[in-house]
């Protein structure tokens, strides 16, 4: 159990923290003066790179004819695997992602070479002149093909709790089903881009990346340079969503290689089609489940096999599939469970991190199983959900961690009331009884999302804080800004610590030169980790200032306080800058690093037990939809969301994360469809064919409230992580569509796969008619 929260500390008034402060770059964004990597003023002599990819999904390269490419106008250099002085690899862990493929190609579009030219246009045009001959072999494209061929990228992994086979055998009711869950393209508005600038012995790389340290290590390894000679910097990204965690590395590496070999700066900005073809996406899954339950709908056992398309290499698939397993229970107590994960190798692009990181897919499967229980028993799915929530004496997860901070029963009750669920349930039923072609559906689903990197050692962060003689503060930390508002939140924490105005804190670009050995800004952990690290740095300086002031004004240290841009020493008040200046003359160090590692988490992969998460973030959403069963069109009528962010560091930013995350999740489950043909060609490789939500697709009636309660764990100002969890609120939309379809054949299971595009909905309508 966490120690009982210290209410005095939690409720202490704050000055900058918890204020709905606008994004630190808001003014720049609305004026168009925010600088992204592609906007950096081009250094003298800068070259441009473009890449060429494999023309088939699987095979052996017979000939890579690049003479015409080399001879094309403006071309300075053509790069292949042979030009790499060090290791030809940009993988995060396993060493299986060549920067340039050599003998074998394993997905269509896999990079074989790069052209470096005087202009971007010249580079891109020259790429097309390559003569590529590949001895094609049949590719494995789908999860089913990979399962049939037993083609794995990583070994299977299983969580076991109790004897689920026995529970299934003994239970009065059982249901088995298969759910197919599609992947998702990130479609960050700013595509992949990097600019490498060579120095004396050094290399500076500006990259749109969530993981500067990993890029630094990749580039050093590739160029055979010491890590200390490579600096990676990022001020901001134009969106990332997980797609710039590992996927930014290859482009930065190619730009750096070109810069190293030519001695000139080089920029690589991927063309959007290349970006969509060559970078990984959310994993698509096939979930086969069996669920056992009593006559009240209480789950007795759950067996699920989660098989995912990982693509040609491991990338982060290990952790992503682990997280799918960690969320296979979502919010529900499973007395007995077997959770089997299969990580399938296919000849497609290597799938990667995407907001939720496998969690959403694990959750979607059990939410479908819960619906199936309700359909079988003729109950309201909400009642079945409530009956199965974690609770007293029912708090052990399938991976040996107790759920001790569960607030879902309270949240669901509150949302059930505020959304008027029961009355609307009756209205929906009445509507459907009279409406043969338009069907309404309603669903209220919960989210419980584990917060921490499940790779325990990654839960660390650093910060660097300087105070200058004019009392302004320079803030740097290991987190990266991708729009999520991390920088402003951490700045609020530092301003609070010194009792100064927010505009006295200078936010600066993330760079490996200031804070080393960082983890990716991922797993929703940004403000939890970096907020704490920056607070530690600020506190170290503040402690020195306090000691100095105590001596200077001859008062006990307890009587020194920092607020309203002043420092109070007993009855004396001195402006913060004046104290700082005095301290400088008093030879006090005004700079400090800060470091944080998440306490109390541990994980034993062998026994598949431990406490992988520091805490859980919770949420619940109620969605109502209308489905036209003749066209498959779907309209979202209303969404009610209640979401838990602990005590928010910045409610404006957090609500933005909830709105955006929800809509992105809705896109994943209702509209965004990745289509590969039998040859492994991605057919939806541009926004003209891949449909991300636009303004007219999102629900007009969207009601969002924050659940006000402190984090029971000691996080920064008792806030909670908010980046990923809201995405999974959109499961309620998917469940509401299934609910609408269920009205066509009450008692039958709805065979609806994700995404529930009009096509998928129509297919489901047909299946129901046939059954």
């Amino acid at each position, binding site marked *: 159990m966490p120690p009982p929260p210290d209410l005095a500390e939690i409720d202490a008034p704050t000055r900058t923290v918890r204020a*709905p402060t*606008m*994004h630190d*770059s*808001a*003014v*720049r*964004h*609305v*004026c*168009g*003066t*925010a*600088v*992204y990597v*592609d*906007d950096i*003023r081009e250094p003298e002599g800068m070259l441009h790179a473009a890449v060429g990819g494999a023309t088939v999904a699987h095979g052996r390269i017979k000939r890579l004819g690049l003479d015409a490419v080399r001879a094309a*106008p403006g071309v300075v250099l053509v790069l292949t695997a042979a030009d790499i002085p060090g290791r030809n690899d940009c993988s995060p862990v396993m060493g299986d992602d060549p920067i340039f493929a050599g003998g074998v190609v394993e997905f269509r579009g896999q990079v074989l070479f790069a052209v470096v030219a005087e202009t971007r*246009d*010249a580079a891109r*045009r020259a790429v097309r002149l390559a003569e590529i001959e590949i001895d094609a072999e049949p590719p494995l494209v789908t999860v089913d093909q990979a399962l049939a061929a037993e083609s794995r990228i990583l070994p299977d992994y299983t969580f076991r709790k109790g004897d689920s086979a026995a529970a299934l055998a003994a239970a009065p009711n059982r249901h088995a089903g298969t759910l197919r869950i599609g992947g998702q393209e*990130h*479609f*960050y*508005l*700013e595509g992949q881009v990097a600019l490498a600038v060579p120095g004396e012995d050094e290399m500076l790389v500006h990259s749109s990346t969530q993981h500067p340290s990993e890029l630094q290590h990749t580039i050093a390894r590739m160029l055979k340079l010491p890590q200390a000679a490579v600096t990676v910097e990022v001020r*901001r*990204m*134009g*969106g*990332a*969503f997980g797609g710039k965690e590992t996927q930014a590395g290859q482009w930065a590496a190619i730009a750096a290689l070109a810069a190293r070999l030519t001695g000139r700066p080089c920029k690589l*900005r991927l*063309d*959007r089609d290349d970006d969509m073809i060559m970078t990984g996406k959310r994993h698509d899954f096939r979930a086969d489940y069996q669920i056992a339950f009593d006559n009240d709908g209480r789950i007795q056992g759950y067996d699920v096999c989660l098989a995912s398309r990982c693509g040609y290499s491991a990338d982060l698939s290990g952790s992503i599939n682990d997280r799918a397993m960690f969320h296979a229970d979502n919010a529900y107590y499973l007395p007995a469970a077997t959770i089997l994960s299969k990580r399938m190798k296919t000849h497609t692009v290597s799938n990667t991190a995407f907001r939720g990181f496998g969690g959403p897919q694990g959750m979607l499967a059990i939410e479908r199983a819960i619906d199936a229980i309700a359909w079988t028993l003729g109950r309201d799915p909400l009642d079945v959900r409530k009956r199965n929530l974690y609770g007293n004496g029912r708090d052990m997860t399938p991976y040996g961690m107790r759920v001790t901070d569960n607030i879902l029963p309270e949240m669901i009750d509150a949302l059930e009331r505020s959304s008027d669920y029961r009355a609307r349930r009756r209205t929906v039923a009445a509507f459907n009884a009279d409406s043969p072609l338009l069907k309404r559906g309603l669903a209220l689903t919960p989210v419980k999302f584990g917060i921490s990197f499940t790779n325990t050692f990654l839960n660390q962060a650093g910060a660097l804080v300087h105070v200058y003689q004019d009392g302004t503060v320079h803030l740097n930390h290991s987190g990266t800004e*991708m*729009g*999520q*508002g991390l920088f402003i939140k951490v700045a609020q924490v530092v301003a609070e610590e010194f009792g100064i105005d927010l505009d006295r804190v200078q936010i600066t670009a993330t760079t490996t030169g200031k804070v080393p050995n960082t983890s990716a800004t991922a797993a929703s952990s940004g403000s939890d980790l970096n907020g704490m690290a920056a607070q530690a740095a600020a506190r170290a300086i503040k402690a020195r200032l306090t000691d100095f002031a105590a001596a200077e004004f001859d008062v006990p240290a307890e009587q020194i306080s920092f607020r309203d841009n002043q420092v109070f020493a007993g009855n004396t008040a001195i402006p913060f800058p004046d104290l700082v200046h005095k301290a400088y003359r008093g030879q006090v160090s005004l700079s400090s690093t800060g470091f944080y590692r998440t306490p109390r988490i541990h994980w034993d992969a062998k026994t598949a037990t431990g406490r992988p998460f520091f805490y859980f973030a919770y949420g619940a959403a109620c969605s109502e939809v209308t489905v036209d069963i003749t066209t498959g069109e779907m309209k979202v009528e209303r969404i009610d969301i209640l979401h838990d962010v602990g005590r928010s560091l910045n409610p404006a*930013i957090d609500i*933005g994360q909830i*709105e*955006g*995350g*929800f*809509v*992105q999740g809705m896109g994943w489950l209702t509209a965004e469809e990745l289509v590969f043909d039998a040859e492994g060609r991605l057919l939806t490789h*541009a*926004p*003209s064919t891949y449909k*991300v*939500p*636009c*303004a*007219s*697709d*999102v629900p*007009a009636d*969207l009601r969002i409230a924050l659940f006000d309660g402190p984090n029971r764990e000691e996080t920064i100002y008792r806030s909670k992580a908010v980046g990923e969890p809201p995405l999974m609120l959109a499961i309620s939309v998917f469940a509401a569509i299934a609910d609408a379809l269920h009205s066509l054949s009450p008692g039958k299971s709805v065979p609806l796969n994700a995404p529930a595009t009009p096509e998928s909905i129509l297919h489901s309508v047909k299946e129901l008619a046939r059954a």
Partner: protein
Amino acid sequence: MSPQPAHDITLMVNGEAIAESVEPRTTLVDFLREALGLTGSHVGCEHGVCGACTVRLDGVIVRGCLTLAVQCDGRRVETIEGLSDSGELADLQAAFERRNALQCGFCTPGMMLTAQELLAAGGVPSRDTIRAHISGNYCRCTGYHAIVDAIESVAQARAQQG
């Protein structure tokens, strides 16, 4: 394919007369960004879908990635930088800031130009009209709700001021 001969063009960009020599296939957005250093117009998809490159040509919004620089010879181009300096967008900018209608900000300049076009038509458009009008500008971060709020609040404020 070898580069084609450059064309000399003259145009007004944000009220300033510009004379430049451009390759015939240079797009307007590349021209603005690379030749003039006006990087507030962004390049998202490079084929006319996302709206990040939205600029004004003779008072009408166009996609900078689908318009060639040579097409702008003798014409008037306005970008986020110009509209920001002139103060034309001041209330809309303030509303975007206030309502947190931006996250990564990459879509923001294009979104504001599109919104301003609707607002300039006058009246208070319905939320559905606003949603429809900006539906050619993608935002992957915000989910649009805050953007619609911001635009609606400006429409109401402008209508009140008459």
